[in-house]
């Protein structure tokens, strides 16, 4: 039995939901399931926009048969060859040999690789090429490495619809809804959009920025992604999030503490630090990386401006769940964050040095303090050191220099102070193109120190 919804009068969502497979891409938990979106346009020619994962192929083919209602399938637009969208393409070509595949040369190669099939009469399209299906006119726009090299998006200039491939998608089954304006998006969906983006696409920020730049030149009324709700209102709010994520800019001035703890000593230190930060009015989040899947911790490392990694030593190295998270952050190109480290080791603490080494592989990660070390558990008096660490982090979160830095600045009055946040640039001259590293205001917002 079919299960479809109309996007517009002549565009039908014929995708489906998979709630039975707990892991997406053999890596990411999807406790809310995931949708695989496919769309059918009923113009003078019929157009299928991508297929679906094998998990829901029965539903998909029933939906397609219903929506076609006896018409022949003219075109299959292939935006992305990853099998969660293209696994069913091989079967589709057998069922609809009359349909012409529309894709680029890289996708053709992948069709051969994945399906041992050569699409007959394929129409190869490049960046900027157009195709008319009757009332609708499509333009193809290359989006390489968002997040595979063959990815294209297509734009229907008639109804102002962007078929955006994996961009603007999310984890989470569509439980009856189809449009983002049918849900409380910030409350119920934003976190899963962030987890999807950061884990799946996060490495390719510059390429996503390039796509956002191309999209900014189009009049977009509706966005049809390959996962998650369709956007027909308020598209700017997801674009604003994407702009931050792609630029590796934090959304929240606050602290996330990913920690690992074998017998509780490290966790207690992390808990105390979190308490002091909260008392100082700093937003704080914690993840036990041995328990919470790293995809959640990674998403919050993109969300927050400050990260405190706390982990024990194990086999003279770094405890594996934390090493996994940090390597994943390196792979995902996380950058531009302030950080602090807490290490634990009962006889030879080594985790701090390894964590610092992994952070060095990322761009623009600033350590706010020397590694905080505990041996087995916090020793008497160390809670005061933790409080000082909390104060230093809080001062940084709030955009002011740490007390020690301020004292140092007071001794060296030469320089310029940012009138917005108080940051002091120590030099006799201030470059004209200088940007405040704390609040990003231009040189014109600086005043000479008196």
């Amino acid at each position, binding site marked *: 039995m079919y299960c479809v919804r109309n996007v517009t009068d002549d565009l039908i969502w014929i995708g489906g939901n998979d709630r039975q497979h707990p892991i997406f891409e053999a890596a990411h938990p999807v406790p809310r399931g995931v949708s695989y979106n496919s769309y059918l346009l009923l113009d003078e020619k019929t157009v299928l926009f991508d297929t679906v994962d094998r998990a829901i192929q029965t539903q998909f083919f029933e939906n397609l048969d219903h929506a076609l209602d006896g018409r022949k399938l003219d075109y299959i637009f292939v935006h992305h060859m990853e099998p969660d969208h293209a696994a069913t393409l091989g079967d589709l070509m057998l069922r609809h040999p009359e349909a012409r595949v529309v894709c680029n040369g*890289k996708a053709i190669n992948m069709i051969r690789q994945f399906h041992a099939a050569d699409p007959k009469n394929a129409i190869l399209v490049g960046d900027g090429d157009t195709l008319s299906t009757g009332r609708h006119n499509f333009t193809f726009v290359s989006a*390489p*490495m968002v997040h595979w090299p063959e990815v294209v998006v297509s734009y229907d200039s008639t109804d102002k619809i962007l078929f955006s491939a994996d961009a603007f998608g999310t984890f989470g089954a569509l439980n009856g809804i189809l449009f983002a304006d049918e849900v409380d998006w910030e409350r119920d969906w934003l976190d899963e959009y962030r987890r999807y983006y950061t884990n799946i696409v996060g490495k390719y920020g510059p390429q996503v920025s390039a796509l956002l730049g191309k999209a900014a030149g189009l009049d977009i009324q509706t966005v049809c992604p390959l996962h998650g709700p369709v956007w027909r209102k308020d598209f700017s709010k997801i674009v604003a999030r994407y702009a931050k994520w792609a630029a590796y800019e934090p959304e929240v001035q606050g602290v996330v503490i990913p920690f690992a703890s074998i017998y509780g000593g490290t966790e207690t230190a992390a808990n105390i630090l979190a308490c002091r930060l909260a008392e100082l009015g700093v937003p704080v989040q914690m993840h036990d990386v041995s328990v919470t899947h790293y995809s959640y911790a990674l998403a919050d490392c993109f969300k927050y401006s400050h990260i405190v990694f706390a982990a024990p030593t194990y086999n003279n190295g770094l405890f594996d769940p934390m090493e996994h998270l940090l390597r994943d952050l390196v792979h995902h190109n996380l950058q531009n964050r302030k950080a602090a480290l807490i290490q634990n080791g009962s006889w030879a603490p080594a985790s701090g040095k390894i964590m610092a080494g992994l952070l060095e592989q990322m761009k623009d990660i600033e350590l706010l303090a020397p590694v905080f070390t505990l041996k087995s558990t916090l020793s008497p008096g160390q809670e005061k050191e933790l409080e000082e660490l909390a104060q230093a982090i809080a001062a940084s979160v709030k955009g002011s220099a740490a007390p020690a830095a301020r004292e140092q600045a007071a001794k060296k009055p030469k320089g310029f102070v940012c009138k917005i946040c108080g940051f002091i640039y120590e030099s006799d001259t201030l470059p004209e193109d200088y940007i405040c590293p704390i609040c990003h205001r231009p040189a014109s917002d600086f005043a000479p120190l008196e």
Partner: protein
Amino acid sequence: MKYICDLCGFVYDEAEQGPMPDDYVCPLCGVDKSHFEPAD
């Protein structure tokens, strides 16, 4: 001389990076040197 990756479009600029090593792999998509062709 500039070279462009035929898969993802990454550009390698000899003027900045020197001659491309034989074991060079594209830092963006990971393919080997054979995928680079002279950029127009």
